[in-house]
């Protein structure tokens, strides 16, 4: 019983980690290459989920919903890059935080205006609504699909960044944008492309999260904070850091919430454990982040320069 419960929670944690990876990969690229901190990344996630839920409700086709979520947030990302972010490349991080904070507020109200305050329901697609038998454990097929999509995106991202010309330019841009620009590469175009790709990944995360989270205004913020914790833990600007950071944060958070209260009940008084257990479980990833930062200020997998 406990073993299967542990396996379930590990898979849940893995699945959360995969979602976080989809978000943090985009955010870390934007941060590493363009040196822009985009707090509105969670907003793109939210809008992706809304696009997906709406189109899925209309057409009942998950493929079209995927197209709407990824395409919609990609376009939205391009617009935000052209209208807001482009003015912020040379500015201090403070103004980037402030401007993207404004964007979050604006889009939360747009969502509230367009779809109302109550959560929009998005069903699990018919094909993936069953369960899969994993070593005698029935696990929802949709969650397996999330893990599969995340792994596929991770692999594709690895190939693009490390094996293609565009990926080479991206890595070069992260090291020295000015030099890449001097060599005749359109760095502005590259920036816009990276930003749009990050937005599309956020939209994909929104699509996948739609059926398992409630799609409502402000749903992007809690996951944005988790994504920031991933970046700090893994190391800002590195894809490898995003992968491992996301999986560590996802698993520690899920497993901690599931087991810590019970574990604490073993070692201390019941009433104290009941009060303190959930509190400490919800703080666990932040404590982990603080511990990582105390030992390795640049994160677990910092970018190697030079």
């Amino acid at each position, binding site marked *: 019983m406990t073993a299967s419960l542990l396996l379930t929670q590990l898979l849940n944690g893995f699945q959360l980690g995969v979602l976080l990876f989809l978000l943090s990969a985009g955010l870390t690229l934007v941060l590493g290459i363009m040196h822009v901190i985009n707090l509105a990344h969670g907003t793109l996630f939210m809008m992706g989920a809304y696009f997906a839920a709406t189109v899925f409700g209309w057409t009942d086709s998950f493929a079209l919903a995927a197209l709407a979520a990824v395409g919609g947030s990609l376009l939205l990302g391009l617009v935000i890059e052209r209208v807001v972010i482009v003015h912020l490349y040379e500015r201090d*991080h403070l103004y980037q935080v*402030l*401007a993207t*904070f404004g964007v979050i507020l604006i889009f939360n109200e747009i969502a509230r*205006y367009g779809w109302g305050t109550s959560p929009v329901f998005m069903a699990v697609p018919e094909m993936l609504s069953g369960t899969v038998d994993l070593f005698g454990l029935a696990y929802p097929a949709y969650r397996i699909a999330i893990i599969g999509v995340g792994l596929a995106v991770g692999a594709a991202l690895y190939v693009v960044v490390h094996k293609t010309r565009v990926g080479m330019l991206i890595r070069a841009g992260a090291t020295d944008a000015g030099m890449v620009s001097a060599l005749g590469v359109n760095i502005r175009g590259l920036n816009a492309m990276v930003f749009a790709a990050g937005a599309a990944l956020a939209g994909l995360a929104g699509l996948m999260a739609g059926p398992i989270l409630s799609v409502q205004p402000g749903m992007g913020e809690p996951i944005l904070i988790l994504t920031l914790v991933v*970046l700090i833990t893994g190391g800002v600007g590195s894809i490898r850091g995003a992968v491992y950071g996301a999986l560590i944060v996802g698993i520690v958070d899920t497993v901690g919430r599931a087991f810590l209260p019970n574990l604490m009940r073993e070692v201390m008084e019941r009433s104290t454990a009941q009060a303190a257990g959930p509190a400490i479980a*919800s703080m666990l990833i*932040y404590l982990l*982040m603080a511990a990582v*930062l105390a030992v390795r200020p640049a994160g677990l997998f910092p970018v190697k320069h030079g």
Partner: protein
Amino acid sequence: MVDTTLTPAASAAHAAAAGAARWRPAPHLCVAGLLLAGLALVPLFSLWLGQSFYVTLVSRIMILALAAVGLNLVMGYGALVSFGHALYIGVGAYVVGILSFHGIANGWVHLAVALVGGGALAALVGLVCLRAQGVAFIMITLAFAQMFYFLAVSLKAYGGDDGFAIAARSDFGVVDLNNSVTLYYVIFAALAGTLFCLHRLVHARFGMVLQGCRSNERRMRALGFPTGQVKLTAYVISALVCVLAGMLLANLTRFVSPSYMHWLLSGDLVVIVVLGGLGTLLGPVVGAVLWLVMEEALSSFHLTGGPLDELVRTHWLGVAGFVALVVALALKHGVYGALVARFEGRSS
């Protein structure tokens, strides 16, 4: 040295001009005087108008101004962008709430516990956060504030998500905070006193070193200044100012909830500082007045009586977001900064 060749008459005229220049108070002193005098007169006006609403509104404005003044010490003078200062507002508020909940009403005890506890927490958090730099500092301060936000949400004994009402305000003996005008002047005194202390602090050696770190920390370290220690001290002081603001906020609203630590409030504080003017003492006060008056005006928007009013009233946060965006993109020195620059440009 140039004066030696002047004729006696010319030099007398010069001296008179110099005297006049000396007598003309500096523009920032004018603004400070006007602003503080205006704030001091608010209760009289509202008494005259018979509207006690204004006393509460301006009390709230001054509390957020106080918190923003505190944040500005690290953000404006130290270039340490903390996106989690709402944490300390929450700490101050929760100390008042929890102590009153357990029947300890003495205000001095509240103050001592809040300042000692908040200071210790800020020292710990600051020690970890200051290991990070730039973007990472922004993200980690935000994450720490969220961590304590979730802690507050999980405190089921103290209202959890919903928060709880405070039975009685802090008891400071003769100074009765249950009188809204007395409370107003206590908040006013806290704001004015903090402004004075910070004015002395940023013009003292400590403030100079902090501003030096803002320009070039490596050079300051090479000159032998303990930059880490200075930054941590500034962080703790700014946190303590926010703790004080949180105590006053809890006393004003007689209510505590995790929303006092919410990151939207941290964001509001950053907007207020930049809107008013980064790295100026009075900027955050001006920013707080503008931002909260705008909030009030938008949430009770009434212009044409048409559907637009209704739209703005329900979705005023979106308009506020748009203003924040414009401030970030267009306003480099903030409203107060631009005002002073114009003033000084004309007088010289």
